[in-house]
Every structure is written in C-alpha cells, then in structure tokens.
C-alpha cells in the first residue's frame, strides 16, 4: 500500500528532515509511527499526503508514484486518503453534518449520496444524534470523532492520523484507538503518528520509530515494553 524507497527530504532552509528512509506498509495493516518531536514524523506524513514532495527517493501509495503526481492531480489523490489531524481542523461555521459531508461534496457526490454516507460515518463514530450541532459545542473527544468521521466518509483505502489523541485523556484516547481498529478491521490501511508510547504498546501493532530523520526501528514491540 505504501512504499518508501530511500526517501530523502531536505527543506529549503537546508534542514534534513528525513534521510534515506525505506519502508513498506501492506494493505490493511495498522502501523504506528513514533519518535520525538522533530524526528521527522510530520514530514513523513506530509510526504504521504502530498503536502510536501521528497527531495530524493520514491514514494508509491496504492500503486501511484507520488513523485510523478502533477499538482493538478493532487486533489484526486487526496480523495482516496483519510486524514485525521491533532487539532481536528473542523470548521466552526457549519454543522457537524456539513463538516463530515465536506469531502463528499468536494468530490462531487449527489446530495442523496452525501446524506446517506455522512450519516453512516457519523453513526460509526457514535455521533449521529449530534449531526445538527455546531462542532464548537462538542467536547474534545467528540470533536476528534467528528474529524475521524470526516476522514473515513469517503471510504479511503488509507487512513492517516497525526497525533489523533494528542489532547485527549487516556480513556478518550482508548476510544479513538478503538475506532481506528474498527476501520482497520474492515480493510483500511491505518497509519497513526503518535508519541504516546504507552498507548502504542497497548495496541500491540507494528511500530515505526524515527530519530533525527532516520528510521531506527521497525517491528512489533514486546508485550510489556520497558520504555
């Protein structure tokens, strides 16, 4: 599903954010990406979401080579991608429903289809009863669930999350992770960047660790890691 081959990213400032990173993530895998801040997590996600382009090396996602992606093709690439943000990036000038429906109206679904799918996504995250509210009145956990509903409403093959539990307490974090696990269970590839090592350990999934732009660990941590 995702293939990084010797990927190098140097920003214009001259800072090397990623150096010779190679990795492979299969379809329907659930993978955690961890590392200290500044280790290159965000850069890796930005490359994956076509916000940035690699300086060297190739990235192939779902059979599509991102190096060859023209700027005009980026929107269409992103429609097959679900992105969850730490600060959930909801729009407070419209209802929960309209926030979730946004990717559908962007990709040109019929109104009926939009209603059906947005409600299905809201139902999955357990917020169907709040569809008419403004997201600003929701709690942090609920807002993040709305963000997740918006990310999955297009039924993306790949779900990418950047610190999705960053501002949440452990119980809510667990809930959010449960949601990701559900989507993964029906075949969605899930990549989650997080520095919550405890939570990652409990999930017992594959972990990628970045340090100073290098991939220093790729594997399944043992049951009770002594971090």
């Amino acid at each position: 599903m995702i293939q990084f081959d010797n990927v190098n990213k140097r920003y214009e400032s001259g800072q090397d954010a990623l150096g010779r990173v190679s990795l492979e993530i299969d379809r329907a895998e659930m993978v955690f990406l961890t590392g200290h801040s500044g280790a290159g997590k965000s850069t890796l996600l930005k490359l994956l979401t076509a916000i940035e382009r690699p300086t060297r090396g190739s990235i192939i996602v779902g059979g599509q080579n991102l190096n060859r992606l023209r700027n005009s093709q980026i929107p269409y690439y992103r429609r097959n991608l679900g992105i969850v943000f730490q600060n959930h990036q909801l729009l407070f000038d419209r209802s929960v429903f309209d926030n979730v429906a946004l990717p559908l109206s962007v990709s040109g679904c019929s109104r009926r289809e939009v209603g059906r799918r947005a409600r299905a996504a809201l139902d999955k995250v357990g917020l169907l009863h709040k569809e008419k509210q403004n997201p600003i009145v929701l709690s942090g956990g609920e807002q993040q669930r709305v963000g997740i509903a918006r990310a999955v409403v297009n039924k993306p093959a790949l779900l990418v999350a950047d610190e999705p539990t960053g501002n949440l307490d452990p119980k809510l974090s667990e809930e959010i992770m449960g949601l990701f696990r559900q989507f993964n269970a029906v075949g969605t590839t899930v990549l989650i960047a997080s520095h919550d090592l405890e939570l990652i350990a409990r999930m017992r999934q594959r972990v990628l660790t970045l340090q100073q732009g290098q991939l220093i660990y790729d594997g399944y941590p043992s049951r009770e890691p002594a971090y």
Partner: protein
Amino acid sequence: MTDTRAVNQRTKPPANPPERSRSAGAVTARTGVGDRFSSWTNHHREMWRESWVRFFASPMSSGMTALVIAIALALPAALQLGLTNFQKAVAAWDGQPQISVFLHKRARESAVQSFADDLRGDPLVAGVTYISPEQALAEFQQSSGLGDALLGMDSNPLPAVLLVRPRGSDTSSLEALATRLRANAMTDSVVLDMAWVQRLAQLTELGQRMSMGLALLLALGVLLVVVNSIRLHIENRRDEILVVKLVGATDAFVRRPFLYTGLVYGLVGGLIAWLLVSGGVWLLAGPVSGLANLYGSGFRLDGPGFTYLVGLAGGAALLGLTGAWLAVARHISAIQPR
C-alpha cells in the same frame, strides 16, 4: 526500547494477523459522470445562492463595496448619457455649412438685390436667400419671445441678411468665399456657421474621449476594489480553504465561491449605478425641459433605458468577475496546507 532491531529491518509479527475481507471498507468511492455533472451544476447553483446569502449576511460592508462600484460606474455612465442627450439636442442644427452676410443698415435694397444676383452667378455659391430687415424682425419676434421689447423701439434694429449656401464644404474654399464677401462695401460682418458646427463636433468628440478615459480609469478602480474585497474574503476563509484542499478539493472548487461573490458585487454595483443615473435624470428632467421650452425647443431628456440597465449590470458583473479572478489567481494558490 527493549526490542529495537536493526534499522529498516522488519521483524515478523508475533502472530500473523488473519486475512481480512476487503469487501466493505477500503473501496475507493466512485461517482458516475452523470452524477458528477449534476453535482457540478448543483455546486454552481449552491455557490450562486450562497454568495447572495453572504452578501446580505454583512450588509454594511457588502453594501459599501457595491456602492463604491456603483458610484465609480455611475459617473462615466452619466457623462455618456449627457453627451448622448446633448447630441440629440443639437441634431436639429444640421451640419450644412451656411454663411450669413450681415449688411450695413444703410445699404439700399436695390444694391443688395444686385449683390445677391452677382453672388448667385458665383461658381462657389449654390444659393442665396435674402432676408430683409422686416422679415428678420418678424422671425425674431416669433421665435425669441422678445417681440414686445422690439415693438417698443422706434426703428427696426435688425440688418438685412444674405444667407449664402456655398457649393463646396472644404475649409479653404469656404474661407476664400468668406474673404470675398467681407471685401464687399455693403458687408458689415460675415459669420461662417460651419465653424460653429465644426467646433461643436470637436467638443462632442472631446467629451466622448474624456468620458471614455474616465470610464477606463474608473473601471480599473472598480477592479481594484473587487480584488481587495475578494482578497479579504479569502483571508477570512483561510482555514476553510486549507481544510477543503486537504480533503481533495480542486482549485476550481475552491475558487468558485469567490468568483460568484465578485460577480454578485459587480451585479449589485451595476444595478445601483443604474438607479443613481436614473435618479439624476429624474431630478434634471424638469429643469431641462423648462429650459428647452424657453428656447422654443421640444427637447426632452432621455433617461438611461433598458440598454443602460443591461450594459451597466452586465459590464459591472464582468468587472466583478474579473476582479475576483485576479484575486483568486494571486491568493488561493498561495494558501497551501503546511
């Protein structure tokens, strides 16, 4: 980390995850072409509606922008309308050159008649009309309404006049004829009406050019006003643009609401401009027709009709759209997710 292995080397999972069915979840959402088209038209319709909603959601700022556009457009439109009316008013005076030869009061009528006959034989002259002082007085009384003032006078103050219609209308032959007429002992003064007509034509042309220049300058002003307003709209909706781009919106999708907003600004501005010009005509119509009556003319001021309505609204809408295009071309591509 206890379990750190070599770099980039994957370890096998403790237990292979079971094969998952891919039927329900990760199927890329697809939409048919017909659906796409109807959703495209829907989006246009929605944006059209939404831009009006947004316009009236902040009536003060939108209204002021529209008013600036309206005033900027009303000025050249009014000037143009004024010129059109002026041309209509002076159309009664045809462009046929005519030389009026005012004769000395003491010239005897028989001498004048022979002078006129001489002129009729001149190859440069097409025709001569003799107006005696009595005829001139009668005409003056009739057309000026000042007859009573003249009746009070002892003698007729008006001279005899020869109206000479020249054969050619080129300036040099006209001037030659005028010089010849001036040389006659009976001639008091010679008035070349053509010069006046030409001056009028030049003045009208000047007015046309000025109104054109003003229109261009003010159209540029309108463009800048729209560019600036749309730039502010874009700035205000920056977060929305970022999110929409991240969920896969094309640039066209992002541009659309702003283009419609520019169109609406222009359209409303154009309509207000038409109302301003109509109001001005309505205010001036009374005095102008009064003035025309005093000059014995049936002239009536033409209002900005349907053509002006269509022209102003359409032109302004086009300007609004162009301004919005300029703004989005500059600013939307600059807003990229980071």
